[in-house]
């Protein structure tokens, strides 16, 4: 009797332990016996992207029998967290879609391998793709390659333009015009409370990108030196000029407010903000969440030079992939960055083709909504991020010091430059 008891208990415990450890076994089994290769592909959950990817995977699998792709997605907010949690457990992907700003941390931690040069030669990449893809070129290697890129542009509400007596077909083109328009489009109460904001202004959303890659370059400045080691933001007067201009909207002009109707996108969608600086990726959201919004898009208002921010989600191969699997992974990424896929990608997600020849076709350049974004691509900059979150926080803090604590803009600016430099020093110190 007793021995049976013990056996049962022991059995239960063994089962417990086995079930806790058996996750990985299932995955290995998926590789199959007749040379079939299964690739694990991860991206963040964004409906239009996930659906398109399912179609593309089907297409790819038909063209390449013997390779199966499994797509796993995570909500954007948890993406890094999920990747971070799953990878040490050995459940990582083979091909991963990452925000370009995260790539240096991933490379740094040995998580990615460089794209094999026989499939992705540097010459080919540099000839065909927009130069902004160099943001993920590290240690002389391309680690990732994107299907599509996004740029920032000015979204404006045509109805509110008309209401304020402005021509909805003549959006602001210069810095001065933008300020002028923003003032005219702002409605405020006597006590200073803003009822309608001329320009939504949110440093934590696209605001910090606008400052870095838009305004700073427009004023003739630059954030990073060519070696990507030195922060040259503070050299000359352009950086500070851009910073002050950026702060003039919530500052002396009083046209904007942080957290106005919670965030810039909500404010613009609910017609509480007349203009917003946002990315091409917002088009889909506007179509689905605010289908009646009468808006148009224009390239960013410029000063001495034209510039806008570009960013992209990009595909890389994780470091443990080798042999046949690596070949399959390269093939898959090659497929994802082919002309045909890029065109489909634009139609489905609103993200712009990463190859110049595909993007600059007349049908796209002259498109009512995509046109302004594509037009901006040749002069778009993608800041080389070491740590997107931290660099973002540094900019937000600098803005808040001026706006909330009445710090001197120049001091806050210099502090921002110094803190950014510290980040870069720390990053390069062990390279």
């Amino acid at each position, binding site marked *: 009797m007793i021995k049976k008891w013990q056996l049962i208990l022991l059995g239960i415990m063994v089962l417990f332990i086995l079930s806790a450890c058996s996750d990985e076994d299932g995955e290995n089994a998926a590789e199959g016996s007749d040379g079939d290769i299964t690739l694990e592909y991860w991206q963040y959950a964004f409906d239009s992207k996930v659906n398109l990817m399912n179609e593309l995977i089907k297409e790819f699998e038909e063209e390449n029998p013997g390779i199966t792709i499994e797509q796993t997605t995570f909500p954007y907010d948890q993406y890094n967290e999920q990747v971070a949690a799953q*990878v040490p457990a050995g459940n990582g992907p083979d091909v991963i879609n990452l925000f370009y700003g995260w790539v240096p941390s991933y490379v740094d931690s040995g998580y990615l391998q460089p794209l094999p040069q026989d499939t992705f030669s540097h010459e080919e990449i540099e000839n065909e793709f927009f130069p902004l893809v160099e943001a993920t070129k590290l240690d002389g290697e391309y680690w990732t390659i994107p299907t599509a890129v996004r740029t920032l542009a000015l979204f404006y509400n045509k109805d509110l333009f008309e209401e304020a007596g402005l021509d909805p077909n003549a959006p602001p083109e210069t810095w001065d015009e933008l300020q002028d328009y923003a003032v005219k489009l702002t409605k405020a109460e006597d006590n200073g*409370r*803003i009822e309608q904001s001329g320009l939504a202004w949110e*440093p934590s959303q696209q605001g910090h990108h606008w400052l870095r890659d838009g305004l700073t370059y427009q004023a003739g400045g630059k954030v990073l030196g060519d070696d990507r080691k030195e922060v040259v933001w503070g050299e000359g007067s352009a950086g500070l000029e851009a910073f002050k201009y950026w702060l003039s909207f919530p500052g002396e002009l009083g046209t904007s407010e942080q*957290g106005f*109707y919670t965030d810039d996108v909500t404010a613009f969608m609910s017609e509480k903000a007349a203009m917003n600086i946002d990315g091409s990726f917002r088009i889909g959201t506007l179509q689905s969440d605010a289908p009646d919004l009468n808006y148009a898009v224009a390239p960013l208002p410029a000063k001495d030079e034209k510039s806008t921010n570009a960013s992209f989600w990009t595909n890389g191969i994780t470091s443990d992939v080798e042999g046949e699997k690596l070949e399959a992974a390269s093939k898959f990424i090659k497929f994802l960055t082919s002309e045909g896929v890029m065109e489909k990608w634009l139609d489905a997600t609103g993200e712009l083709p990463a190859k110049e020849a595909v993007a600059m076709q007349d049908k796209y350049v002259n498109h009512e909504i995509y046109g302004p974004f594509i037009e901006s691509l040749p002069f778009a900059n993608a800041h080389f991020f070491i740590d997107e979150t931290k660099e973002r926080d540094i900019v937000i803090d600098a803005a*808040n010091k001026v706006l909330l604590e009445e710090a001197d803009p120049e001091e806050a600016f210099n502090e921002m430059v110094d803190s950014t430099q510290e980040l870069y020093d720390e990053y390069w110190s062990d390279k």
Partner: protein
Amino acid sequence: MGEGYFPSPFFTIRGYIMEQLKSSQDYDREYDKKKEKVKQKAPFFYKLRKTHKYQKYFFIFISLLLPLIFYLGIRVMPTLFTFNMGFREWNLLATGERPFVGLDNFVALFQDEVFLKSLLNTFIYIVIGVAGQLLFGITVALLLHKINRFKGLFRVIYFIPYVTSIVAISWVFQWLFMGNGFINDVLINIGLPPQPFLGSPDQALYVIAAAMIWQSIGFQMVLFLAGLGNIPQMLYEAADIDGASPWQKFWNVTVPLLNPTIVFSAIIGMITFIQVSFTQVINMSSDGSGGPLDSTISVVVYIYQQAFQQYDMGMASAATVILFLFILGLTIFQMKVLTKKFDY
């Protein structure tokens, strides 16, 4: 782990029983045949087979064993592991070596202004939050204790926030307190200037603490209602006879007898405050990460950022160890200071 790992009383008892058993012919034969290992186990199973009492305890211990293994695996091991990680340079994404760096992480933490700020903020959250929810909880419970009609209805109303999603509540508060929100409308209508609330480094923390207090009133109310129900009515009657005023009855009868509940509430409230100061902060702070100017960041948010945004598990674990000591210290303090013995 050899023999010596087992506690000695076990040996003594077993030795004694073995002595008894040796006299049995039946056992002797088996004993000679078997090896050393089996020799030791045999009396245990023999006891089990023969004695009902041992069977009972055996069953109880086995039943307790599963939750115990679970508890060890899910709670204790990770906790101990965190201590280990706190002393290493541990990048979450890296697969290579994780070198031991001694106290480096702790030194770096105490040089990080944001971390010190988060410690201070967590302390403020706890002090304001726990005091606030105890005060409101007791008040609501005392009032509800006095009424007889619609008691259930009121209890439900006060308890609903506690079972509502924290994220939903955070967003509603964000809308209420935004520049163009309801609260500012009220302020303007009664002739006061509008306030920045969540947009101000001086006010944001208190708005978030208020949301947390509001949400936990219901839970505290339930605890205190149970506590009040346990106070014998005769004590109040005795106080009445002595001519005590309501205030005197409250301070000299209710509060002392409610003391165990207060201590319990304070500790539970403190622990939940440390835990939930994450969701509210993430959802209510203006930049979604403890702003503006780190004025609302709590230690938990800081840990999260270190671990899952900077991938620095070493720093995150070190901060967790400090948080652990922080909670331990506060709990001991509360037990010592708040727990008093009252005779009645």
